[in-house]
């Protein structure tokens, strides 16, 4: 018997291959089966944004925090500081409040990449995604993107790494019709606003790149100082999908991103009628 295999075929030789990703699908897929108790318990959800105000009643608790900021003296170009921090703008708190509303028991992780410097950086966004992959985050919500094409390959690699690590990366489409990275990549859950304010409803767009639609126009969101505001933007639609994914991962911890896509699509408002 020939025991020489081409590269990458070793896992399939002998008895070392683990079980294929399993998902005991029901037919039709129901919300009860997909979302379970809807708590998101045990799921680590990161908000990559301006920080989260843990004291806001709509947020309740932040389990971990890290600040990633540009540092020209650091070899990597960024400084990473773990620990509690404020939300400078209110936007991260808004996103966190939406996730908490949908999946109240998730472990919230605040990854602050928008600081006092007015120039946001693709480098900090990229490092934030990498930090999430390396720190066991299950669902990461990124309402930010870059148009800097120099980072095209960097983000492509990161999105692939996230997918292989079974981290669901949810990205808001830019509010302006222009190419943005990584929100238009096939490997992310890209989200834009759909009409209405009911966060239980979401839509699946069969024509990419804006793959998912959820409430984000004139919606109530948490903000600074324990207050709420009415706000509009794709930024506020992305955490809705992140919240639903947290529910799914909480109920089916071994689910892969591509399986989660199938489940989400089966629950979308525009799903075909069951035959």
């Amino acid at each position: 018997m020939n025991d020489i295999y081409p590269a990458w075929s070793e896992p399939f030789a002998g008895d070392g291959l683990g079980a294929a990703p399993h998902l005991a699908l029901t037919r039709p897929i129901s919300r009860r089966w997909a979302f379970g108790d809807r708590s998101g318990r045990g799921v680590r959800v990161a908000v990559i944004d301006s920080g989260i105000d843990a004291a806001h009643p709509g947020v309740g608790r932040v389990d971990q925090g890290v600040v990633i900021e540009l540092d020209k003296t650091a070899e990597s170009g960024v400084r990473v500081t773990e620990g509690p921090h404020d939300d400078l703008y209110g936007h991260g708190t808004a996103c966190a409040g939406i996730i908490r509303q949908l999946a109240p028991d998730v472990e919230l992780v605040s990854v602050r990449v928008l600081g006092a410097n007015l120039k946001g950086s693709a480098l900090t966004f990229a490092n934030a995604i990498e930090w999430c992959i390396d720190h066991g985050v299950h669902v990461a919500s990124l309402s930010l993107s870059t148009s800097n094409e120099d980072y095209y390959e960097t983000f492509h690699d990161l999105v692939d790494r996230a997918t292989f690590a079974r981290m669901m990366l949810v990205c808001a489409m830019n509010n302006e019709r222009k190419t943005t990275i990584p929100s238009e990549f096939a490997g992310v859950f890209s989200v834009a606003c759909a009409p209405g304010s009911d966060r239980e409803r979401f839509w699946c767009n069969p024509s990419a790149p804006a793959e998912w639609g959820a409430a984000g126009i004139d919606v109530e969101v948490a903000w600074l100082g324990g207050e709420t505001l009415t706000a509009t933007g794709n930024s506020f639609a992305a955490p809705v999908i992140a919240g639903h994914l947290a529910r799914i991962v909480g109920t089916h911890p071994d689910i892969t991103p591509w399986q989660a896509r199938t489940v989400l699509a089966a629950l979308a408002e525009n799903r075909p009628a069951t035959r």
Partner: protein
Amino acid sequence: MLARLAELADDLDPLATPGELTEQLSALCATARLVLGAAAVSVARVDEDDTGTALVYVAADGVGAAEIIGTRLPAGHGVGGFVVASGQSLAIDRVQDDPRFAREIAESTGYVPASLLVVPITDGGGSPVGVLSVLDRDASAAGSSADALEVATSFARQAAFVLPRIELVVRLGPMLVRAVAEAVAAQDRDLAAGLRRVAARLPESDRELADSAALLAELRDRGPETRAAAERVLAELLALTAPRRRR
């Protein structure tokens, strides 16, 4: 006298802003205000100096316009700060509910809007260089928040052609005045040398601009053949280093 002139150059920012360009922006604000039925529309640019980054309002139309022009809002807070840092536009209502925002605007203009819509103004590379803010748009004139965002974004795209030119003049103007003052003080007719001396003391963000100005000043002193050769080299280099489009 010359030292005073050089000092004056440091304070020139608002005065150095070219009138024709700010008038273009003011006209753009006025049109945007009419289309959106807004109480006020303003344009601010990102400014970097020794004290850090800030938003400086360069044009406005409507309520509080006179008060807001020239106002400098430090980085790290406010809806405008978020929009520049994130590159994402934002429309919010009941802005008074954000106490920090209300205080900040009230202190600068005396007018606190009920609704605010802010979109980024980006350069050719997609980096935000400023913001366009719409205060208290009329929903019946502007349609939904999503519609208003789209209209405001199209005005921001127009502002994007003007804002970088203002920034260039604002940064280069004081630099040239300082360089001339230095050259005269040193009884030196070499403008390039003066610019290089100024460049050595500038923050990194402006050093490149001063160095480029010095290079151009040097080239002007050469013959037409040398200038033509330098232009060819530059054009070839630019073509070689242009970012490759992947799609």
